[in-house]
């Protein structure tokens, strides 16, 4: 994750006891004008993403496109091979027995849609990302257990090592740590 003018640290991360602390902290931080930040929690918390002013995701769109491609592709394959490429009289049925082509069309739709959804989700989330600066923070491992974190990144224009730490400590954070690259 290189950025043009690389700040000395990645950012500051605050640890909280419960989801509510995190939620309020996040909201406040946003109202305080912080933008480059991310909240971390052991399980999805309602309203957290919104608090970060993150509402729309393109995952559904990607899925839809995948589904359309799959469906059309599936039917075209059947239609083309059965009527154009090598038409054969099978049991007296017409070459284009479209009703018989539906099941595969359907399955192809689902298949491609599902694959699109997953790959889309991963891509948009920038996963896989086995290495992340936050992992340098010892305490951060508890994010997958019982702790909640808010990280304000150094590249945020408002970021200021001391000021931001101060700001974060306001919301009974159990600790605020520096995140090295």
């Amino acid at each position, binding site marked *: 994750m290189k950025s043009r003018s690389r700040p000395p640290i990645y950012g500051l991360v605050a640890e909280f006891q419960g989801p509510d602390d995190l939620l309020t902290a996040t909201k406040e931080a946003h109202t305080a004008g912080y933008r480059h930040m991310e909240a971390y929690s052991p399980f999805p918390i309602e309203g957290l993403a919104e608090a970060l002013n993150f509402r729309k995701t393109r995952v559904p769109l990607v899925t839809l496109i995948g589904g359309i491609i799959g469906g059309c592709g599936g039917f075209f394959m059947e239609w083309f091979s059965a009527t154009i490429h090598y038409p054969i009289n099978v049991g007296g049925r017409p070459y284009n027995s479209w009703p018989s082509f539906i099941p595969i069309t359907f399955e192809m739709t689902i298949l491609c849609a599902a694959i699109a959804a*997953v790959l889309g989700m991963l891509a948009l989330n920038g996963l896989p990302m086995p290495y992340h600066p936050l992992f340098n923070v010892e305490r951060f491992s508890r994010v997958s257990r019982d702790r909640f974190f808010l990280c304000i990144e150094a590249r945020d224009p408002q970021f200021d090592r001391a000021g931001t730490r101060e700001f974060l400590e306001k919301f009974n954070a159990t600790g605020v740590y520096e995140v090295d690259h």
Partner: protein
Amino acid sequence: MPSMPPPAEEPVVGPGYTYASVTEKISAIVLTRRTPRFWWAAFSTAFLFFLLLQVAIGYLFYKGVGIWGINIPVAWGFAIVNFVWWIGIGHAGTLISAFLLLMRQEWRTSINRFAEAMTLFAVACAGLFPLLHLGRPWVFYFLLPYPDTMRLWPQWRSPLVWDVFAVSTYATVSFLFWYVGLIPDLGSMRDRARNRFARALYGMLAMGWRGAARHWHRHQIAYLLLAGLATPLVVSVHSVVSFDFTIAIVPGWHSTIFPPYFVAGAIFSGFAMVLSLAIPIRKIYHLEDLITMRHLDNSAKILLATGLMVSYGYLMEIFTSWYSGNTFEQYMSHNRMFGPYAPVFWSVIFCNVLSPQVFWFKKMRQNIAVLFIVSIIVNLGMWLERFMIVVGSLHRDFLPSAWHMYYPTFWDLATLFGSVGLFVTLMFLFIRVLPMISISEMRELVGEKEEEAAETPAGGVS
């Protein structure tokens, strides 16, 4: 959309659990606690059967499908019966996770993970048979559409081709669904794991999951979408499987009721298998607080409901065959009930129609032993049902001169039990290396409980 269950019901998670403790409890099974002796015993037994399967397959490829009892007219035997049976079982998992997720049934949480795993392994077993039962398995790729040197394609009107697509799609989607749900937990495992190798492995699989809010958001959406896709898929898959029969003109196969009745049957057998697995596991790993009586109770109710649907299917089959006035159909029903394979029919009636009726009584639903026994009976009954449909219909169709009996051989049985061995083997590997209950979702439940405690209005799962 059904809302939270009334407080009267038992909780879906035992009292006194915190984020930390659920996480620890579940991950510990894999990471810290030493493998129980029971696990080794069960695993090795299962593995023996798995070996038997390999022998059976080896001999099959060497000699040909003639080692089975199949013949003309009964050209399909155990292989197809097992296929349909396994596919049926494979339906509960996705259904529990996907359908109940859409229905906001939070009680799904603690059983969905291994139900999904069960699905995967059942589908894996099922997937074997269409390949094994081929006369020339080495040219199985004729079934796939690819630009060949012969200008030839699969014959799209054949339900068997539909099967290929349906089953492979189902396997893929189930896997994705399972994996996507697993990612956050893999994160937890990564962070809990002690030894270096395990951490690297879980780390890779977790793809660097770190519970970021935006990630959660997209993850939730994708998971929901997958659920939305999987639900019709589940229905379509077993409908397609039932097309294998309905598209044919064989009396006893050619019936419009099959798709719904097969889907119901699939859920029926699937839940039976879930119970057969859940009951011993929760006992052994002391997960009574996570897989509570509530789960078992609901599963039992579903068994009862689907059992009734299946019974309706049987009834309608007999009725339509009588009502149709079609000699062949009528003879088929009569032959099914009083012909040489009558015992199968009556056992099916006992297993699938009568035995679930006990679940009308709460006492029975609450009785672990009864639950377990009935679930086993239902599994058996559903296998017999498929046998009744496949063999019972084929052995006496149109021309009496061609009628012939079918008797399974040792190799038929070896393949059946071998596949069970494979299934159990995979199942045990799974509970050994992966969290068998969704940790993150359990945390969520704990979170909600706390909210409830804090009198905040209860919302569903985000």
